[in-house]
């Protein structure tokens, strides 16, 4: 799967979780500062990404992803690893 494909799906899931349009998100958008993420959002977002890409995201990895760009890069990497 192309990185673009993963990026679009990650953006869509994040947008759905926070009730915003996908195009309003950029790579620097911060879950905490810009989207006012609460712990519930984080848990739901991780579960949605896990289900979408059929991967497991450890809590310690999830904590490192603070922006939309970081989440896209992380998921791209996970999908690539899964493909191998």
């Amino acid at each position, binding site marked *: 799967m192309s990185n673009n494909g993963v990026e679009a799906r990650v953006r869509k899931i994040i947008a759905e979780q926070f009730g915003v349009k996908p195009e309003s998100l950029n790579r620097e958008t911060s879950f905490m500062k810009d989207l006012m993420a609460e712990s*519930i959002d984080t848990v*739901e977002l991780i579960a949605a990404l*896990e*289900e979408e890409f059929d991967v497991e995201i450890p809590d310690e990895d999830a904590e490192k992803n603070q922006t939309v760009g970081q989440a896209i890069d992380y998921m791209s990497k996970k999908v690539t690893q899964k493909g191998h």
Partner: protein
Amino acid sequence: MKLCIFEDGRFSDLYPLTYTRPVFDLRCGRTKLYEKIMRNFQGVGATFFMRGHLGPVFRDRLEGAVNELDALRGDDVLFVNGRVLAWRGAIRPPGDEVAAIRGDEIAYVYAKRETVSKLIGSSIDDLLDRLRAQLSQLSIDADLVGHPWDLVRNNPKAIVDDFESIGRRGILGKMSPKAEIYGDAEKVHVAETAEIHPFVVLDTHSGPIMIDEKTKVLPFSRIEGPCSIGSESTIVRGNVREEVSIGPVCRIGGEIEASIIHGYSNKYHTGFLGHAYVGEWVNIGALTTNSDLKNDYSNVEVYVNGNLYDTGDTKVGSFIGDHTKLGIGCLLNTGTIVGVGCNLLGGEVLPKYIPSFAWFTRGRISRGSGLRRTVEAERRVMSRRGVEMSQSYVQMLQHIYDVTKEERENLIKRSKGRAIPEA
């Protein structure tokens, strides 16, 4: 004679309570349905039949073979529908072979050894169909549980029936001299290791009260009969109104009326629970309240397994599946169904139907944390009460997660449509 206690095809009419247990494991009064059946036949062993995903879990819990047809060979067998409410003496050991039918449903079948051996096939359903076709039929007037609210409706009768069955009376445990029995003291049973603290009132005017081993009733609690409180439970400043059954290892406070709490669940704080059935490993947060009466006093309607039923009753509360957590201040409408493994946050009236493993937060239904994290959390919850979650239990939850996926996804989609305004 052998007993065979079986599930028929109507288990889904008792969802969400029967996702995680066979129908005969449901509680009504102090005892579960299979316990009522078995106490009519002291010393008789039982074989149990249930859906496949439950078998490995209940094989460890029940004394008797599970889903083993061959266990029925070699003796006369009394087959009893697991939904029968077997009041004391209601099912008498019959002499002749018979299929006892209530309406169009089998209540019980009695068959001789030779007949069982001759007709036994590949499944319990086949066997029962053949027995029904071959044996003479007797139309009887038995009580069979059809829907969750039937358990609540029959609970007061079941408590009285159980009280008569245990045959024990009086205060055998510790009762503070500053606690009071208001009414007939002969209608109380406090077990040897139970404790009734000061400023507790046990009111037996409307029925008996049973308080089981190692249970504590803390000060300023009032308990009205008929009532049964299971072992190792704690009542914390509880206003326990009439017709309440509480299973083992529960912590109950606030106001509760005409309800069944299966066991291992908490409702510690202020808040009202009425005409409800609460499963296992449920936590009900402070101020969470359910309605059990509509403002227009009309019959309450309930969604079960995709069908809307008129309960025929004006007093119907909530039915809550195992492992569900209700946060502070949840408001449940009359006849609300909440599935297994849900997480609900309060602040508004919840939808009347929440599918299993869904979350309800900020006005919308979502997938929440998914199965894996829910299992991890529930494993911690169970270990706090000294119960280990087995691999077969995890597989049972996985099965429930899978079979409820479609309805969950459908309701999540509908919920999103309502909650997120178009920009």
